[in-house]
């Protein structure tokens, strides 16, 4: 099906265009052409979506490009497909991608690497599409690594800053650790299924062709891959650092799309994960601890983007909690709503940073409400959505997850609620400190403050609307019977019977849970309001912090730990080996040669120039020859 290829290739063409000739064109043209290339994909994705809604299941669209590899038992086509899951992802990617492109035209205005930025963004979209559209695991891996690469390029976009470069490398390398897990998973799949095609693998799994151990191993390997990409413990530390990139990048890659690839992977492989309860348990607990840890760290961060980054990690943890209990549609639901409001928040923060002239520290902000109204309102919507304000998208998606968890593991539910509470706290903290109160920045910054241009605000508004109404996608049955659980039904061909064994709580319980969620939201709001509005307190300086707060502000010293345990140790190992290498292996020859040289000197000494010594040696030689030959 050609359309799929057009969807895929359109961003690629955009990439080549901006990359090769974008340098010589005015910014506007480059920017718009790249954006349009995404728009094309978006429109076509809509068409695909439309086409899928008519059919009742199965991968409706499939297109095979060419044989990529055909060796031994590995046979991989360069093939893409679009089923219902994919189409959702495609819409999210191209839709939000398009908005962010628009946003960037203004945001990146005047940057020397403007064309490069758009080239990278387009390349990213291309890779992301490969990731979700691939019809086999290898295609997924292609996209998987490809987005990692783009993420690397974009984090280090301002390459003159060495710190940014370091962050970029950290992201890439952390991702690669995950990739190794994924790769191992691929190998396990190849060796057990002799194929990498989704259909073949899942069919094999369904027919019981795989042992539980094998499936568990595959799932854990895949999850390690997901850990890297979706920033779960222990591989989450790159994501906050990744905020070094331009803000649109953070919005698109590190909030809305790329980091959710892990979720996509697990949802895609739901057949396998359903067969591996142990792996599911692992996911559940990792997701939970990530969610709480990230939320705790988020409490004390002062960089507006860092807070959002930890919030992303935390929300991703939430999604994985959902995946851990097998609530795939809930996870997808949250994925989509999260894409909306987190993109919104990031773009909003970008707008703030833009207005502040590059300042990211919330302690230097305050009272921006009056200067940047559009940003203020949209950011407010985003904050409310993420904190779980009833009827906002985040409320529904979060509630769906919590409700499902409650029926299965009440303890997890409780901890997840705590996490949600903390989320509310830090989000309101950021919001209030940034927009309320009085301005705390310098005078020049104050002069500079202005509302962002339309190209920035329009995407904000669109995303705000989506954040508001996104909950409609999967309304609980409590509210409506006709359109309830639309998303769940939409995904049912993909998820198959994976969803069936989920027990939904009774309506009364669900009402109760919702009420609890609302009260949590209110509690968070009141607490922060009390602290930052009524007392108008400003987050303290790092030095003042003690105890738990200090740990939180320092991210629980995980970076330092990793630095000590992995980076330093491997570096010192490398140094030692380096010495050993020049000493032992390069020296081996030296020893041998000096040994030979020594012998050479010895022989020279024997050759002392005296005839009679020579004669003596000769006679001894003769005697030896005689004795050995005749008597021995």
């Amino acid at each position: 099906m050609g359309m799929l290829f057009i969807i895929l290739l359109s961003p690629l063409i955009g990439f080549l265009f901006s990359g090769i000739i974008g340098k010589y064109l005015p910014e506007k043209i480059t920017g718009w052409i790249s954006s349009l290339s995404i728009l094309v994909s978006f429109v076509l994705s809509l068409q695909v979506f439309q086409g899928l809604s008519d059919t009742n299941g199965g991968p409706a669209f499939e297109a095979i490009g060419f044989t990529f590899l055909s060796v031994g038992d590995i046979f991989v086509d360069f093939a893409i497909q679009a089923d219902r899951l994919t189409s959702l992802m495609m819409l999210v990617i191209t839709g939000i991608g398009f908005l962010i492109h628009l946003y960037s035209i203004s945001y990146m205005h005047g940057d020397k690497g403007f064309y490069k930025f758009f080239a990278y963004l387009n390349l990213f979209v291309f890779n992301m599409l490969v990731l979700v559209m691939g019809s086999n695991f290898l295609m997924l891996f292609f996209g998987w690594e490809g987005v990692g690469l783009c993420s690397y390029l974009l984090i280090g976009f301002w390459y003159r800053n060495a710190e940014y470069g370091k962050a970029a490398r950290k992201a890439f390398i952390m991702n690669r650790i995950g990739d190794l897990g994924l790769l191992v998973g691929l190998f396990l799949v190849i060796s057990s299924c002799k194929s990498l095609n989704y259909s073949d693998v899942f069919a094999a799994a369904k027919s019981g062709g795989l042992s539980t151990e094998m499936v568990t191993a595959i799932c854990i390997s895949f999850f390690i891959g997901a850990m890297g990409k979706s920033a779960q413990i222990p591989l989450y530390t790159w994501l906050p650092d990744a905020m070094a990139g331009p803000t649109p990048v953070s919005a698109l890659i590190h909030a809305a799309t790329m980091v959710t690839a892990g979720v996509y992977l697990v949802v895609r492989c739901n057949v396998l994960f359903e067969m591996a309860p142990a792996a599911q348990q692992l996911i559940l607990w990792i997701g939970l601890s990530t969610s709480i840890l990230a939320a705790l760290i988020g409490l004390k961060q002062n960089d507006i983007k860092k807070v959002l980054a930890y919030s992303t990690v935390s929300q991703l943890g939430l999604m994985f909690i959902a995946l851990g209990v097998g609530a795939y549609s809930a996870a997808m639901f949250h994925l989509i709503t999260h894409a909306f409001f987190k993109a919104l928040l990031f773009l909003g923060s970008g707008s703030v940073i833009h207005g502040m002239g590059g300042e990211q520290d919330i302690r230097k902000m305050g009272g921006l409400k009056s200067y940047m109204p559009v940003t203020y309102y949209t950011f407010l919507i985003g904050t409310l959505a993420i904190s779980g304000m009833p009827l906002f998208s985040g409320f529904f998606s979060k509630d769906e997850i919590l409700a499902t968890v409650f029926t299965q593991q009440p303890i997890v539910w409780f901890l997840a609620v705590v996490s949600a509470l903390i989320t509310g706290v830090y989000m309101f903290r950021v919001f209030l400190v940034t927009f309320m109160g009085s301005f705390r920045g310098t005078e020049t910054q104050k002069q500079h403050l202005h509302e962002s241009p339309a190209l920035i605000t329009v995407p904000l508004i669109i995303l705000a609307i989506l954040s508001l109404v996104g909950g409609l996608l999967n309304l609980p049955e409590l509210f409506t019977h006709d359109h309830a659980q639309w998303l769940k039904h939409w995904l049912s061909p993909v998820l198959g019977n994976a969803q069936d064994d989920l027990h939904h709580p009774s309506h009364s319980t669900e009402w109760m849970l919702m009420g609890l969620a609302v009260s949590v939201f209110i509690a968070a709001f009141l607490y922060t309001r009390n602290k930052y509005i009524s007392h108008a307190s400003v987050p303290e300086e790092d030095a003042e912090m003690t105890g738990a707060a200090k740990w939180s502000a320092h991210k629980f010293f995980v970076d330092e730990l990793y630095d000590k345990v992995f980076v330093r140790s491997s570096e010192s190992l490398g140094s030692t080996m380096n010495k050993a290498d020049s000493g032992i292996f390069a020296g081996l020859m030296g020893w041998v040669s000096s040994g030979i040289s020594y012998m050479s000197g010895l022989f020279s000494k024997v050759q002392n120039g005296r005839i009679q010594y020579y004669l003596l040696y000769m006679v001894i030689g003769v005697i030896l020859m005689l004795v050995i030959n005749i008597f021995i």
Partner: protein
Amino acid sequence: MLLTILGLPPAFLLLSFITILCALYVVTNTNPVYSVLALILAFFSISAHYVLLNAQFLAVVNLIVYAGAIMVLFLFVLMLLNLNKESEPIVKMGWHIGAAVTAGLLLVTLAAALHRSSEQIMRNPAEDIGLVKNLGKVLFTDYLVPFELSGILFLAAMVGAVLLGKKQTNNKENNNYSETSSQ
């Protein structure tokens, strides 16, 4: 052992005794001139052995060539260079012992190896092969080529000796010893 030696023909015993004694004198005496004289004596006794072995021609040749020509040449050179006991280099005792041990070892080895090897030798003694007439006949028929060759060898040796002996200035000086040797 002693008995077997004493049981040998007295002529052989006597000659052997003289030969070995002279030989030892040659190698141990520190005066080169005495050495030469002892060596000449040794050659005489060896010539006597030749007679004993019915090799009359060689006995004579040995006397003329070796004891006569070559040894005189040696003596001449020694005199010419004025080498005597005083100019003889002193050799360390340790070296003597080492050399003696080595030579003794070789002797022991050879003796042990060739012990009882006489059985391996075809014995077909003929009294007359050593006579000048018979030997000459063979020499000028079967051994004509080597005989001619030895002449050429002499020529080469003569040229060589002249080459080394003559002065750098290419002044044709007579070098007696080289002339003598090539007769």
